[in-house]
């Protein structure tokens, strides 16, 4: 397995290089010049040129790209052009709120959706199964924005069940996350229940299930002990591949609920052509994605002994 991990890690290098190249090319092709905004409405051409020189934008593209690669290698992305803040501090400040929002909500949605899917599979074709599928389709049709606006207005403002928005550090601040979690889970359920239900139903059609039933095993035992275990590969794939995206938070939830996470930070950076921040977010995201892929493969071998990492 060690050799496999080393080899996969080495494969990651060209991938990361590719991501860096694409990010760099996109910024230079469509990113726009951020300097006039940084210098304000009375900026002269001379001041703009000076600032561009200081930011390294006047050097050759190759030099700029090499500088970018160095930053990627050292994970030191310097300072934001727009806010003058240190990027590592900005990312760390945004990471905790983003993860506090997405990680619990993500795992709650997995638990709930897998549970519902098992029930649906168990009661396949029953009214429960049909209504659940119908609700899932309906749920998928409604945009998250509608859930947010309605939830914030009725549950928080009218019924006083939750905070309208806000953020505080520490455990006391968790109360601000209850409604965003609820919305995140509700929005995720539609797609996830449908996916996991299909995965589980695929498994229930396998020969080993018929064999288990022929041996006289009860339905719950077949489902929870055999089917769930075998359905773990697609479930794991879905879960682990989603994990890297959790770090960027959720733009809509963060904006509406005043959560100072990385989603808002990233979009703001794009709007302001704040390249150092964009670079950092994209690069770290891609590294996490590659890492998650590797983890998925390792997890396959753990949950399914037939999978060999060679």
């Amino acid at each position: 397995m060690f050799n496999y991990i080393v080899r996969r890690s080495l494969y990651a290098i060209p991938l990361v290089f590719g991501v860096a190249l694409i990010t760099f090319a996109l910024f230079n092709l469509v990113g726009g010049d951020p300097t006039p905004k940084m210098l304000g409405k009375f900026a002269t051409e001379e001041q703009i040129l000076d600032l561009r020189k200081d930011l390294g934008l006047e050097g050759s593209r190759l030099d700029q790209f090499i500088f970018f690669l160095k930053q990627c290698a050292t994970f030191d992305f310097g300072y934001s052009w727009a806010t003058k803040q240190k990027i590592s501090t900005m990312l760390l400040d945004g990471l905790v709120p983003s993860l506090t929002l997405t990680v619990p909500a993500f795992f709650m949605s997995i638990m709930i959706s897998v549970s519902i899917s098992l029930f649906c599979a168990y009661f396949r074709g029953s009214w429960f199964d049909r209504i659940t599928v119908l609700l899932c389709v309906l749920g998928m049709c409604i945009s998250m924005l509608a859930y947010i606006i309605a939830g914030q207005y009725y549950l928080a403002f009218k019924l006083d069940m939750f905070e309208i928005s806000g953020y505080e550090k520490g455990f006391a601040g968790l109360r601000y996350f209850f409604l965003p979690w609820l919305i995140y889970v509700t929005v995720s359920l539609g797609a996830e229940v449908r996916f996991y239900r299909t995965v589980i139903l695929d498994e229930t059609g396998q020969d080993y299930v018929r064999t288990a039933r022929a041996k006289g095993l009860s339905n719950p035992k077949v489902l929870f002990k055999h089917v769930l275990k075998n359905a773990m590969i697609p479930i794991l794939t879905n879960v682990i591949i989603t994990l890297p995206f959790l770090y960027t938070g959720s733009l809509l939830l963060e904006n509406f609920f005043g959560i100072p996470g990385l989603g808002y930070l990233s979009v703001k950076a794009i709007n302001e052509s704040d390249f150092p921040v964009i670079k950092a977010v994209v690069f770290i995201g891609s590294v996490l994605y590659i890492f998650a892929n590797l983890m998925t493969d390792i997890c396959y071998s753990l949950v399914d002994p037939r999978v060999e990492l060679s």
Partner: protein
Amino acid sequence: MRTVLTTLTVLMVLAIMGIGAPGSAYSEEPDTAVRLAVIADVKGFDPVISDDLYSNTAASQVYEGLTQYSYLERPFKVVPNLAEALPEVSEDGLVLTFKLKKSVRFMDDPCFKATGGKGRELVAEDFIYSWKRLADPRKHSSGWWIFENRIQGLDDFRNTAQAAEKTDYSVAVSGLQAPDKHTLVVTLTGPYPQFLYVLSMTFASAVPREAVETYDKEFLNHPVGTGPYLVKEWIRNSRIVFERNPNFRKEVYPSVGEPGDKEAGLLDDAGKVVPLTDRVEMHIVVEDQPRWLKLLKGQFDVGGIPKDNYDAAIDKETNTLKKRLARKGLILAKSVEPDATYTAFNMEDPILGKNALLRRAISLGYNTKRRINLFYNGRAIPAQTPIPPGLFGYDKTRVNPWARYDPEEAKKLLAEAGFPNGEGLPEFVYENMADSTSRQFGEMFTREMSRIGIKMKINANTWPEFSQKLRTKRAQIFGVAWSADYPDPENFLQLLYGPNESPSPNSANYKNPEYDKLYEQMKNMPDGPERLAVIDKMVKILWDDCPWIMGVHRQRFALQHSWMRNYKYHAIGKGFYKYYRVDAALRAEKRKKL
């Protein structure tokens, strides 16, 4: 893993039950903190980078300048702040001597090693250092324009620093002298009547050299000023908590206002020592809905009315607050922003630039009143000239002959211009931003133009693209808004001054030697009938040449709760949190009913 899952489940159940979350973070607190909402975060607390509204507002609670705006008086007026009085001015108007208030101290901070962390006294050298810092090319400050070519020797200092590897702050500037620690003598390069206005801007605030050198690049996160508040907490993109600066000198609430202020209770605290409250919280709420709902819940004490909530808040017939909200104790405050929106023609365009009749025709085909209803909820007044209300030179009786909607007259002018029904004209390009409101704005413009026979297409841009086109004179027709930097008509009339052509703010690239001559005369004149006469002439030239389609001057509608005291919107000055307070008992009682 099981424990983690159990905890998460319990939290989810708690959430669904709403335990501990009854929208009540503040409802039972008998606190005196003032809570305000803003729509974007601040960059940091460094006066030289405080160029956006929110960074400027936040920094001006901590840092102060020699002068400030009078909080209550209108028209806007400059009064002393860290200066004991307004400066003595030499006969030629070029030498200004400021006497600093004595015993003003910076807030305590570990950067003051010589005093063991105790904030040291503010001295005249602090201003010299701070203004050199603004001039330092390595700071890339967007505020440098306030002193550029204005103070003797300061441009040389900047040029020397530019050529050197490192900025040497020990280099003397002939126009900035400190004969003693409480006297600052400033020598200007020429008349600069707006100088006291720019000194009231946050850019010109005093910062202690010790803090800048100790924290270096992190200085913007370690505010050390002389202001009424220090920064107790800053959670980026979430909130800033200001607490009373214990070192703040004795300063009192103003006792002079404008007519109506006394009746509005704005002079009730006259003579009281400020800051009137120990804590002010600035909450960053990006989206309109939560900001609005929190205001209605009493979690913010003052707030604006989002565009989408306007109909729910304002009775359109009477333009007053709806009874439902008035019964909750909310009070509507209206004010006109000193700003102007306009649609500019690029005067270097071979067709538009050479044909005043064509520009007038386009202006007559543009329906400003309809825009005010559709896009501003009626919260704007049509602009007749670039000068907004509240500034010297604004005259509400002026009527721009081309700033009215008259498509029939527009068609006639178009024919006179040699383009009957738009024949012979190419398709014009209207450059605007890519957001949905700007697109709607542009679509309305193209429809209006097609009605008079002019073909026009919209080109949507990001801000960097848009700004680049303006700077490089590549935009043909485009919409811009300008907010006052200081309350002087010069700040608006310079937008059409020939030498200020792109990349400077005259993006229309309008050049009229007569206008330019009058501008040069007007900019250094004191307010009075003579200056007004010059402004009149300039306005008439602009009307004739029609380089802009005049837009609007926007109005601001704000709501405040009945418990909020001393809130009066000041469109230019920002360091006024020191005057705010709330009636805590009333707030606690009223909130229960919200």
